């Protein structure tokens, strides 16, 4: 019984630790949108053409945060 309780405890702690990785993705997404906004204010006429690149960079960066969320969800519901 003790080992099962310890395993459950470790599972929840692990899920919490895995969520720290999403903070890194948050920094990355903030950098992307912040730099896009800074560049768009300098040269508004070129901003519209870079919207697709913005979304692509956002999606690729967000994917890394999604992976850590995936680990947390797997620890909670699958393991």
């Amino acid at each position: 019984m003790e080992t099962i309780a310890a395993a459950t405890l470790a599972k929840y702690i692990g899920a919490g630790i895995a969520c720290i990785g999403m903070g890194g993705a948050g920094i990355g997404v903030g950098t992307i949108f912040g730099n896009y906004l800074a560049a768009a204010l300098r040269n508004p006429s070129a901003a519209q053409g870079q919207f697709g690149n913005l979304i692509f960079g956002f999606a690729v960066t967000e994917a890394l945060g999604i992976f850590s969320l995936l680990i947390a969800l797997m620890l909670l519901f699958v393991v």
Partner: protein
Amino acid sequence: MDPIHQFQITPLYRIGKIGPVDLVFTNSALFMLITVAIIAIVLLVPTAGRALVPGRLQSIAEMAYEFVANTIRTTAGPEGMMYFPLVFSLFMFILVANVMGLIPGAFTVTSQIIITVALALLVFVIVVVVGIARNGLSFFKIFVPSGVPVYILPLVVALEVFSFLIRPVSHSVRLFANMLAGHITLKVFGGFVIMLGAAGIVGWVGAALPVIMIVALTALELLVAFLQAYVFAILTCIYLKDTLHPGH
């Protein structure tokens, strides 16, 4: 009160058993059918007249067409228009399913990972099959970027293969996780309203704060619903571009 309860799949009508498969018409299937019906009505009915000066509904259909067509042209090039039916279907299905999920009480189809995985694997299989059918073995050039020094090439190829294989995972989990997290957040704030409202007159005043928060979050979720459909479509275009020009 349980914020996960909204994702429960409930059987509505049992069709019967075919072999080991238990065929059941669920609420998920019902909302998928409603999604397809809405898309069909919005696209077919107003465009049947083909007015030269479009009315309100015909404008929606034309705007949706132009939007997706522009996305494909800018990301995959003019040749990418051969994939227009696929990208348009995916975009419209996800968009309508996401937005319909925001209606209180409605079931969000895209918050089920099995559905997003099915959509992402469809794109993945099409990229592999069409890529090899169109380009033959030169399709594998997508793993070998040009202009990379020979001594780091094995590492780069290993990374490219890994990132190619991880695509369906990130493609599907992104949509699923965004929808799941947004709807759980809305339900948690809804729970605050109920808890504070049960506390009497003082609680009713306090409950106004989470209500305002829910309104703001719903607006944010509307943006996310559109953005995730757009992201799914634009990534599909970028993946499909590999089948047109591998090795770039």
